[in-house]
């Protein structure tokens, strides 16, 4: 069985995928269109050339990298489908489904130890390094040398990172108080979890976006804050002779489809949400195993990941997906505790899940597996900006106080990144508006 659309395409566009024509809804992510067309294997892993498909559908994994219009390693999960796009599998000898280099996977059933492999003879080691470099890696250079894209700079009172409900509320509240606000969001459409939650709330997402834009917030979609840097004054001599000093506010680098902007914000709001992470069981990396958010996101685009979906994990989100799949006409098995899941079965696509059942083991038929591992805050940018991050036994969390305050005086964190999920939308709003009020006061 394969994934299928449960809603007809409204505005069809044609993609050329490895020479085949694939229909897509205009503007939906290319990976969603490929999934709906039953194309789950999109690329191959770097070392063993194991078949790979998208897991996260959210710019966090390696599963959707393809060559698009002559440019390698495009994350097709965030690329809106458009007519005539040329999408190609990269890094294979053959096709994505039959890659001759997959022999590497069989040659090394137990993995390879690159510390010791072929190290007993220098000449052989050199030869094998060359071989390894040909087999490994992702993508090759673009067809044409890309011209440098222009960059720009801007100063704002407040930079909000993440356009979910918390980020939108914080941005709107700061803008209403007269602060200049730039909101950066990675997805094609802002709204964050409101757009993919098992019971999505796109109406609320649209209303919050309108509210923020109406208040004067500048919105940058499909863009990431890829780093934040302290500007240092230029000094001659060694650090001991003339210690460098931080001059002015930090510079956040925003990267989007049209290039890079260097932003100097007086205050930064981290509303980056959560990493769903991964589960490790036998062949959990095979196409057809997706995270819970991906299964939900596909549903929001009118695509069923499978007819009989095994659920792994626990809690309200898993129960919500179970209900949403049932309402869409699919069957589910489980949910199973993550620790009990032993193997994703199937040779060319998922056909079962092997699960511990007391002292025995059982195989349940299924054609897709949706997992919800313990989640973590999206902490990377926050950590660099000075927010404390710590392991809580299952994932990494930000240390956040009243009104989103953090160890960094110019940074506050709000929303799902701090554990506030949208089941309590009023609480998310209250936290975001408290953070905004504090920022408005600090920047008076």
């Amino acid at each position, binding site marked *: 069985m394969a994934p299928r659309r449960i809603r007809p395409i409204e505005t069809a566009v044609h993609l050329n995928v490895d020479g085949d024509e694939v229909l897509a809804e205009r503007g939906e992510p290319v990976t969603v269109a490929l999934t709906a067309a039953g194309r789950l294997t999109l690329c191959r892993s770097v070392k063993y050339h194991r078949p790979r498909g998208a897991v996260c559908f959210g710019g966090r994994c390696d599963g959707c990298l393809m060559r698009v219009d002559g440019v390698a390693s495009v994350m097709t999960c965030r690329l809106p489908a458009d007519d005539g796009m040329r999408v190609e599998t990269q890094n294979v000898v053959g096709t994505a489904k039959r890659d001759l280099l997959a022999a590497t996977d069989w040659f090394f059933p137990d993995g390879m130890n690159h510390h010791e492999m072929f190290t007993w003879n220098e000449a052989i080691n050199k030869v094998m390094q060359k071989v390894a470099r040909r087999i490994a890696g992702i993508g090759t250079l673009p067809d044409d040398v890309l011209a440098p894209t222009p*960059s720009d700079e801007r100063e704002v009172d407040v930079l909000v990172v993440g356009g979910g409900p918390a980020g939108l509320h914080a941005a709107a509240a700061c803008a209403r108080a007269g602060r200049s606000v730039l909101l950066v969001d990675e997805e094609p459409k802002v709204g964050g979890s409101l757009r993919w939650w098992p019971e999505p709330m796109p109406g609320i997402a649209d209303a919050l976006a309108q509210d923020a834009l109406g208040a004067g917030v500048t919105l940058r979609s499909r863009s990431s804050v890829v780093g934040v840097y302290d500007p240092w004054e230029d000094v001659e001599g060694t650090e001991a002779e003339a210690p460098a000093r931080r001059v002015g506010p930090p510079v956040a680098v925003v990267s989007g489809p049209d290039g890079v902007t260097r932003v100097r914000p007086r205050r930064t709001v981290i509303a980056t949400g959560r990493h769903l992470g991964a589960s490790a069981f036998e062949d959990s990396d095979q196409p057809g195993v997706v995270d819970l958010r991906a299964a939900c996101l596909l549903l929001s685009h009118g695509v069923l990941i499978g007819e009989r979906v095994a659920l792994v994990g626990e809690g309200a989100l898993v129960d919500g997906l179970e209900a949403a799949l049932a309402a869409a006409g699919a069957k589910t098995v489980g949910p199973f505790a993550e620790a009990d899941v032993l193997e994703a079965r199937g040779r060319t696509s998922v056909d079962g899940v092997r699960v511990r059942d007391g002292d025995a083991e059982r195989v349940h038929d299924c054609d897709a597996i949706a997992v919800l591992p313990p989640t973590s805050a999206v902490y990377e940018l926050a950590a660099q900006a000075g927010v404390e991050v710590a392991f809580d036994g299952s994932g990494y969390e930000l240390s956040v106080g009243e009104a989103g305050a953090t160890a960094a005086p110019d940074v506050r964190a709000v929303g799902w990144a701090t554990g506030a999920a949208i089941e309590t939308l009023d609480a998310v709003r209250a936290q975001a508006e408290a953070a905004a009020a504090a920022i408005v006061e600090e920047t008076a």
Partner: protein
Amino acid sequence: MSNKVLVCRCEDVTLGELEEALEKGHDDLESVKRYTGFGTGWCQGKQCVALVARLLVERGGKTPTLPITPRQPFHPVPLAHLAELVDEEEKA
């Protein structure tokens, strides 16, 4: 596809390699990263850091209070975008 338990998809690191690293005494998250290469691929650990931290604790490794140090850029950036950021003096 041969049966494997992968703990880091991007760099194809197996559970066996993680356990081998532990056996050789690499019992903290940073050392495990340096020995196995987990978390150093396309996703830079977004998928695997918490998972490897949990697996490490379950196997008696040191509690990984901090994640591996996040390195910028936190999302892949085309070189064409960075080329324009070089200072005029440096270009000359």
